[in-house]
């Protein structure tokens, strides 16, 4: 099971949410929403320290009994959240990092589309394909 969500400031509503398999999406909405608080906490904690890496990979946000939640935030305060099944122990940290980086790259491509207004929900076919292929690789 894998879910990825992109949330944008300032209201933090999700621009994009995709889960594999697709049932129980509501539960994931809830998990992601609670993890946003953890994200904000980590951002404010990191604020004073010097960050050498421009993208802030937040790592494991918190493990519940079923799921592990990973977060990633960009300098423009766009938050990416991924929820992974705890039973999926094969996923290593740098795999998650590279998945976030791919998400970020695709997100910047979407932003460059002149017909996309920041804050709109993301309806791009290329983005869907990228996310699907990424999730299929994992599951």
């Amino acid at each position, binding site marked *: 099971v894998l879910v990825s969500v992109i949330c944008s400031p300032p209201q933090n509503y999700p621009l994009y949410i995709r889960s594999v398999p697709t049932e129980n999406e509501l539960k994931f909405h809830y998990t992601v929403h609670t993890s946003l608080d953890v994200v904000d906490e980590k951002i404010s904690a990191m604020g004073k320290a010097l960050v050498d890496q421009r993208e802030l990979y937040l790592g494991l946000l918190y493990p519940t009994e079923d799921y592990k939640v990973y977060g990633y935030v960009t300098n423009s305060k766009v938050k990416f959240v991924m929820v992974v099944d705890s039973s999926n122990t094969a996923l290593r940290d740098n795999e998650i990092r590279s998945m976030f980086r791919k998400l970020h790259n695709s997100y910047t*491509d979407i932003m*460059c*589309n*002149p*017909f996309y207004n920041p804050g709109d929900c993301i309806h*791009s*076919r*290329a983005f869907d394909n990228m996310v699907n292929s990424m999730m299929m690789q994992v599951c």
Partner: protein
Amino acid sequence: SRELFVLTYGALVAQLCKDYEKDEDVNTCLDRMGYGIGVRLIDDFLARSAAKKCRSYSETADMIAQVAFKMYLGVTPRVSCSSAAGNEFSLILDKNPLVDFVEELPAERASLCYCNLLCGVIRGALEMVHLAAEVTFLQDRLKGDAVTEIGITFLRKAEDRKHKRN
């Protein structure tokens, strides 16, 4: 600075879409803007490329594709002649840098010619060297076709310079 140019063009088209409701109005506006650019760009092109006078329409089309497109957009379209009379040509673009970031046209803008500015530029430039032409998009990758094809139809014979002096 290529990204800045592409993003600027995209912002221009997006703003025109907000200003005009109908796709045809946006297309016309882009064409007119392109025309204004073309009549000015031709002098810069001729000065920088030191091109010799073209003796035929096919030489002109080749010059546009191989020199002008390469100089300003960095791509070289293929030229093909599509009429027996020798006055209709097609420029076939496999890669169009202006649409790098645009994945597809929004649903409500299905008949928008995103790169119509290019048609206007070619038309304006040709007019300043006394060649009247009609330039339109025959195929557009953004609309689902395989390639982007610009059709140039030369309308009347180039004016004879001796004739003008009389």
